[in-house]
């Protein structure tokens, strides 16, 4: 997907979706000792119309919890999500018209589609809930239109999800998300469950939909190359916080945070000639989000860490190339 040249003027435009200081802790049951799982601990982000914001991170970094809060499936303990300046979480729950404008595509199309509903019923459900089509005739026409939009043949709408391949199922999930004409689609690992040869089809579909419909995407994935490919801007998460954020070219081309450097260095590349290049090898696994380390969360695995890192938690500050590129590291400048 060609991240089209950045047309956004940060001052002139309001973000469609904004998250401020989001926190979410899952409390354990009776048996859990200590605190709960601190999945997201203070995340800010802004999403502008027509752009793709990529979120990368390893398992347990809180990226799926963040996704669920951004669509209102999960209520943050602290902080706020706003859609065009209007708060998501009111006393009466998420207002219906906001729900309609912010949709989600899930990772596993087989578990996120009801196996006992036909494709027509799956895609028509949001139309019914939001009263977007009057009469069964209009409903069928609209479903057919949506299926065509995602590259499926409308005459298969009376079939069930299991009759489709993985890539086609993901297209059904995308058609369902598009049904309400959303301004924002949050995609949580939308291509990770797909075969390599099919991934590219779905990635290209997202690009095309963004071009034709102008929808803004939050694209969450663990595959660094896919995120680079689809995103205008990228956020790198580690243990519930954003370690680095900025334009995709800046974050990938000149990473400022040691964690981003390590991630990029560890990613396997399909180039046998680069075998045996020097790589940054991190020791151990990411710490548990039940008891994140004090200070900088990455200091236990970081080769640049000093005493200061164990005590003072760094905040996001403009990186070496300034502008939109921010990193949360005491030694970000030295890191480049």
């Amino acid at each position, binding site marked *: 997907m060609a991240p089209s040249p950045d047309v956004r003027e940060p001052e002139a435009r309001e973000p469609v979706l904004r998250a401020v200081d989001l926190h979410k802790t899952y409390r354990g049951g009776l048996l859990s000792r200590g605190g709960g799982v601190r999945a997201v601990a203070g995340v800010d982000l802004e999403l502008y119309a027509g752009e793709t914001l990529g979120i990368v991170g*390893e398992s347990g970094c809180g990226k799926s919890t963040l996704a669920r809060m951004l669509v209102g499936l999960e209520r943050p303990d602290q902080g706020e999500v706003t859609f065009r300046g209007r708060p998501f979480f009111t006393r009466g729950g998420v207002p219906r018209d906001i729900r309609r404008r912010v949709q989600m595509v899930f990772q596993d199309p087989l578990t996120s589609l009801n196996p006992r509903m036909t494709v027509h019923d799956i895609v028509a459900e949001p139309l019914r809930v939001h009263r977007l089509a009057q009469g069964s005739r209009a409903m069928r026409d609209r479903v057919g239109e949506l299926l065509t939009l995602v590259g499926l043949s409308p005459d298969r709408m009376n079939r069930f999800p299991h009759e489709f391949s993985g890539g086609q199922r993901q297209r059904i999930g995308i058609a369902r998300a598009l049904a309400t004409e959303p301004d924002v689609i949050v995609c949580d690992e939308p291509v990770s469950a797909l075969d*390599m040869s*099919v991934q590219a089809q779905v990635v290209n579909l997202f690009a095309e939909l963004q071009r034709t419909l102008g929808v803004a995407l939050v694209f969450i994935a663990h595959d660094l*190359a896919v995120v680079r490919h689809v995103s205008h801007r990228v956020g790198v998460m580690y243990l519930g916080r954003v370690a680095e954020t900025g334009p995709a070219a800046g974050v990938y081309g000149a990473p400022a945070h040691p964690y981003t450097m390590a991630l990029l*260095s560890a990613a396997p590349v399909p180039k046998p000639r680069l*075998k045996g290049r020097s790589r940054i*090898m991190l020791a151990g*696994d*990411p710490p548990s989000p039940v008891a994140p380390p004090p200070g900088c969360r990455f200091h236990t695995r970081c080769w640049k860490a000093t005493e200061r890192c164990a005590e003072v938690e760094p905040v996001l500050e403009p990186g070496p190339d300034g502008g939109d590129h921010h990193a949360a590291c005491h030694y970000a400048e030295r890191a480049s």
Partner: protein
Amino acid sequence: MNEPPVLEIRDLHVTFTAHGREIPAVRGVDLTIERGQTLALLGESGSGKSVTAKAVMGLLDQPGARVRCERARLGGRDLLAMSEDQLRALRGSEMTLVFQDALSALNPVLSIGDQIGELYRVHRGLSRRQARARSIEMLDLVGIPAAARRVDDYPHQFSGGMRQRILVAMAVALEPDLIIADEPTTALDVTVQAQILELIDRLRRDLGTAVLLITHDLGVAAEVSDRVAVMYAGRIVERGEVEAIYDLPAHPYTEALLAAIPDLDTPASELRAIPGAPPSPAETPPGCSFAPRCERASEVCVTTRPALTPLRTGAGRHTACHHSEEMLDGALA
């Protein structure tokens, strides 16, 4: 002196029978791996790569599965002529398997020391005390901190990366000739994946073990393998040295796969997607299995299945495509 290859498999077929239907999952696969070499068996889900691994290990002894093979030799010994007991003695000592999901591969109610120690007690007849000492050595070797203290811990007390290390420790414990690693890092994070791949590679170098790496990840295959065999719909469609294949793929499927994955360094404007989906093993088309999705397909591809034949370029390069030579000529012209 000509050393026999560590593994030599000729014409392996695996057919499952389900609901009265025959499903050919593997349809004539040849594999040869030399000592100290890593062969990556690359393929998508349903291509038959994991079934091949299980068949080689002799783990497909189940009703409904039929394994047929013309020749199967491990370090010159004929596996087909062996009794079940003899094969059982080989598994775990001469050839070992690293599974994808370490949590379900390890026994949750036995300590790690007991599980690694069992190998030494069963295959080497060591005492409990000796086996425990060797287990600690192995845990040390694969980089588990405080091995002597952690040897009595249970699988759930380790993280995902540590559990995968334990599986690798068990696989190399008896210094086998062959390790089969079935998607050993697929369930792991990138930073941990790099550690495990590095570990397997180091052990291969130090112990001279041959490795059969089953993976769907083109990046992983490029990082660690010497040779690559690409599987599609139960057959090997291309094989050769890793550099040659990635530089100049001679099968349209390999070429399309390499073009379909995004590149970190040079983000292209659009990915070249392969139309359609891989065929189900139950209904593969006649002729070339890839023909319906192939942009080079001609009439002959639909009617006649191309055999895996050596290419003019030599170096053990084989492809199963009617258009391979013209692909290479086109690329070089």
